[in-house]
């Protein structure tokens, strides 16, 4: 592409139209998330990594809570020298975000001083603070687990009256709701307490490797740092263990592909002692390890394995077949760790100067100390806690539906968290004064309208970025968390006029070449369409899909870097993977034959 036709920027936010007919749904989102004219001056990008699908009014709570916490950690807690927090907007259900960079040298110097007293303290006391973090996080989980059950009895229980409690049941709706919301916002503070520092240490080592070995692949650096024993791998490990136990107990015949979880459980119960033993072991694995979402935990409909056993159950037959074929189905952790050690030593040997080796040792040591948090936190935050959170909101949905506010429990997620509070107070009032609640006349129509809007928005593509392209992107948060670099943006801009539409490029996440039928999975509900030997093509590869990696031939995603868990899982399974293509789900049609070259980061459409 010649320089003269190269576009210099992305569409301005003001040029982006709300899809006609969805204006009221768009207006439902909080005022501070709506684009304004002034936003045209700034650069924004679509956060399709975390929010690849249009977000419902309640689900945007995750964006609010996460960016409040991320911004606070960067701006006020650790005082990152060159960046403040992240601004967020929504249009057509798509979340756009923009960073606030610090560019004034004197201000950077002032913040650097603060940063070194704060972040360095965290690094220096990492192990103690992480232990403390786990305690805090577990206490938060317990709090969420022990929140009062929702109930509006006709009469207040007599024992409450005799005990002189003095507070009626309707009050606890508000109390529990506010605690639920507060807990979620608090969880995100914990989430970001260490995250940027963890990524930063990894990037420090990565940056060194890229200078010392300019052609080293990102996935190789990732393999040198990866901890392998993070909690996020446990759910999959538990499944492998259960597959093995099913064979040992002789109940594997019941765990057939295509059978529903209910039927399987019934069949197991009929098998007597061995079946019951297996079910008991399943129960042990489920708490807590099946508190893992089939998504990244950012959408209310990403249910956990515990809520829907069909995903874990659909993976069992594959593991069972592999184990029966004599394969060792457990993750070979010792072998993986030995490989990691060897890799580190081999690259170290290639360094030329003792000083360089000493610096390398310092950086890898720091990365090894701090990176396990980056791998491990997700299970507690994005999965376990988020799951409790959405399920508690679901309880409110059920209660409100029971009182005629909604046709369906899930409709609650079509309200913002402010609107839910309003509906709760409406219900509290009605219960207290004997009048009918006002909500049943108001919400069902609005819910239908919003559901229709989200369906409509999902059909419309949205630009990957908006506004003027910044000269440099030196915001470590944006670079670390989203992998957005100037080169990336140029590639996005160039992709508009890409000559060879049959070739799609992304990050080389896991080596190898595979050909097969593309299965374009745009949302998690479509995951059961994958057949043995298919190539998964999705918006964002997700680590909790790990069990399906045993049956696919390769993975391709629109979004993601080589440090994403999916990339790690793909490497462990030895599957080719190309991530961060930006456009694979748009360019590849379901059923097409494609070739994935995971070593070069190239996907070719063959027909």
């Amino acid at each position: 592409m010649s320089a003269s036709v190269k576009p210099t920027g992305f569409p301005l936010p003001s040029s982006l139209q709300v899809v006609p007919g969805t204006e009221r749904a768009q207006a439902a989102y909080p005022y501070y998330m709506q684009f304004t004219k002034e936003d045209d001056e700034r650069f924004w990008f679509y956060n399709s990594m975390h929010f690849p699908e249009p977000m419902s009014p309640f689900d945007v709570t995750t964006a609010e809570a996460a960016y409040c916490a991320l911004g606070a950690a960067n701006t006020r807690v650790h005082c990152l020298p060159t960046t403040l927090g992240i601004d967020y907007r929504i249009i057509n259900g798509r979340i756009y975000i923009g960073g606030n960079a610090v560019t004034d040298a004197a201000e950077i110097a002032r913040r650097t001083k603060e940063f070194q007293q704060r972040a360095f303290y965290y690094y220096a006391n990492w192990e103690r603070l992480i232990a403390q973090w786990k305690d805090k996080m577990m206490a938060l989980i317990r709090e969420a687990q022990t929140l009062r059950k929702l109930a509006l009895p006709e009469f207040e229980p007599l024992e409450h009256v005799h005990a002189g409690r003095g507070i009626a049941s309707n009050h606890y709706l508000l109390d529990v709701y506010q605690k639920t919301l507060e807990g979620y916002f608090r969880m995100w503070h914990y989430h970001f307490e260490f995250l940027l520092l963890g990524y930063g240490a990894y990037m420090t080592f990565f940056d060194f490797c890229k200078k010392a070995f300019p052609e080293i692949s990102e996935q190789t650096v990732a393999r040198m740092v990866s901890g392998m024993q993070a909690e996020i791998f446990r759910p999959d490990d538990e499944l492998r263990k259960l597959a093995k136990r099913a064979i040992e107990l002789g109940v594997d015949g019941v765990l057939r592909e295509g059978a529903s979880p209910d039927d399987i459980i019934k069949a197991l119960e009929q098998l007597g002692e061995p079946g019951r033993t297996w079910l008991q072991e399943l129960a042990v694995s489920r708490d807590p390890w099946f508190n893992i979402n089939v998504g990244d935990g950012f959408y209310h409909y990403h249910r956990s394995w515990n809520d829907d056993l069909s995903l874990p159950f659909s993976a069992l037959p594959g593991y069972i077949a592999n184990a029966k074929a004599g394969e060792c189905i457990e993750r070979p952790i010792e072998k993986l760790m030995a490989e990691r050690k060897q890799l580190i030593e081999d690259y170290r040997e290639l360094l030329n100067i003792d000083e360089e080796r000493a610096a390398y040792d310092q950086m890898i040591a720091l990365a090894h100390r701090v990176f396990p948090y980056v791998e491990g936190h997700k299970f507690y935050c994005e999965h376990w806690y988020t799951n409790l959170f959405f399920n508690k909101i679901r309880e409110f949905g059920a209660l409100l539906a029971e009182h005629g506010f909604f046709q369906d429990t899930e409709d609650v997620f079509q309200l913002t968290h402010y609107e839910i509070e309003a509906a709760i107070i409406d219900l509290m009032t009605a219960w207290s004064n004997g009048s009918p609640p006002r909500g049943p006349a108001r919400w069902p129509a609005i819910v239908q309208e919003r559901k229709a809007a989200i369906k409509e928005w999902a059909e419309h593509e949205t630009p990957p970025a908006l506004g003027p392209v910044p000269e440099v992107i030196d915001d470590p948060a944006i670079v670390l968390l989203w992998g957005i670099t100037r080169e990336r943006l140029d590639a996005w801009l160039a992709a508009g006029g890409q000559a060879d539409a049959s070739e799609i490029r992304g990050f080389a996440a896991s080596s190898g070449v595979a050909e097969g039928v593309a299965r374009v999975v745009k949302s998690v509900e479509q995951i059961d369409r994958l057949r043995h030997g298919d190539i998964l093509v999705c918006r964002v590869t997700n680590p909790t899909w790990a069990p399906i990696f045993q049956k696919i031939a390769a993975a391709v995603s629109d979004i993601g870097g080589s440090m994403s868990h999916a990339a790690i899982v793909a490497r462990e399974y030895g599957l080719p993977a190309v991530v961060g293509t930006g456009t694979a789900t748009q360019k590849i049609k379901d059923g097409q034959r494609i070739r994935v070259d995971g070593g070069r980061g190239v996907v070719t459409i063959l027909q």
Partner: protein
Amino acid sequence: MTWDRSRGSSPNKEKASHALQENAGTDSDRLNRLAMRSSESISWFADITLSDRPAVGGKGGSLGELAHAGIAVPPGFVIRTTAFERFIAALEEDGPIRAGVAELEGHDLNGITALSENLRARLEQAPLPDSVHMEIVGAHTDFCGENNWPLAVRSSATTEDAEGRSFAGLQDTFLWVMGAQAVLNRVRSCWASLYSVPSIAYRRKHRIPENTVAMAVVVQRMVDARSAGVMFTRSPLTGDRSVVTLEATWGLGSALVSGEVTPDRFVISKITGEISVRHISDKHIQHVPGAGGGTREVDTPENLRRESSVSDQELAALKDIARKVERHYGQPQDIEWAIDRSGEILVLQSRPETVWAARDQTPVAKPTENPLLHVMNIFGGRR
């Protein structure tokens, strides 16, 4: 880079042993026995190390060193400088040789040309001393046995490939030489090429004392290359020491070096073996052994033009060889290689890579008293 040797046909193909494996069978057994019989004028490869350079020249020293290190090279022997010295000593009796060269000035092209013509004619026509003649014929017989193998006869000057000074390409190499008499003639031609105009001019320009200059001659089996190429034990583009960059084409490597063919290009990680770059080009022609010696250009068969000239398995083996050679020398190498028609990988030449060597002296990062300061590279806005 120079490519002063071609590859040719080895008619004896009973072996397909892998490059890194010990050659098995009668051929190598016999060559091993021969290794015990190096004489005053002859050294077999397996007896030679780099420290023998004054006697076997740069090329001979390098090949011997590789063979010594267990790297497969096309087998052969070196006619040591002793033979050259005897030959020259006999000639000096009829009139000065070295003294005449030493008197010349580097810029005196006319004088150099005149002397060169005179000396080369004398060297080409003079008979070999009997002892030298007999040792060479004996070595040839020992080497070839009943086989009439095509051989390469290559100059190996004592100053060639020495640190910091490259003589390479200034002296002659003869390919597809067959029979003892032809070898004798070519050996004499190699010696004579030490007195070519460019050789003399180079030595005079660099004021290299004539009495330090001598010529050994390498005699080795031609390789009938199915594929051939070069590899660097680092990236020539970025200097990255963690990769092997490899170029390959069908047939003899001369087509690649002369630029007549765009080679296939690969980048292979030394550590993970990952092939990160795999560019398969259209290799429209290839060089093959000529009927009467030398090489000729032929069209590549249509079905092979866009096929990779090396398999992934061969790439992995080449990468291992590259690492072994580099480890052996303790510094990045520039290696010429060929794969013969039986699939055996042979190293033809290895020399130190010099372009990036200077850059290696500057560390990418130094240790810091507080290791945490490294993170400022990311958080400090200093990128």
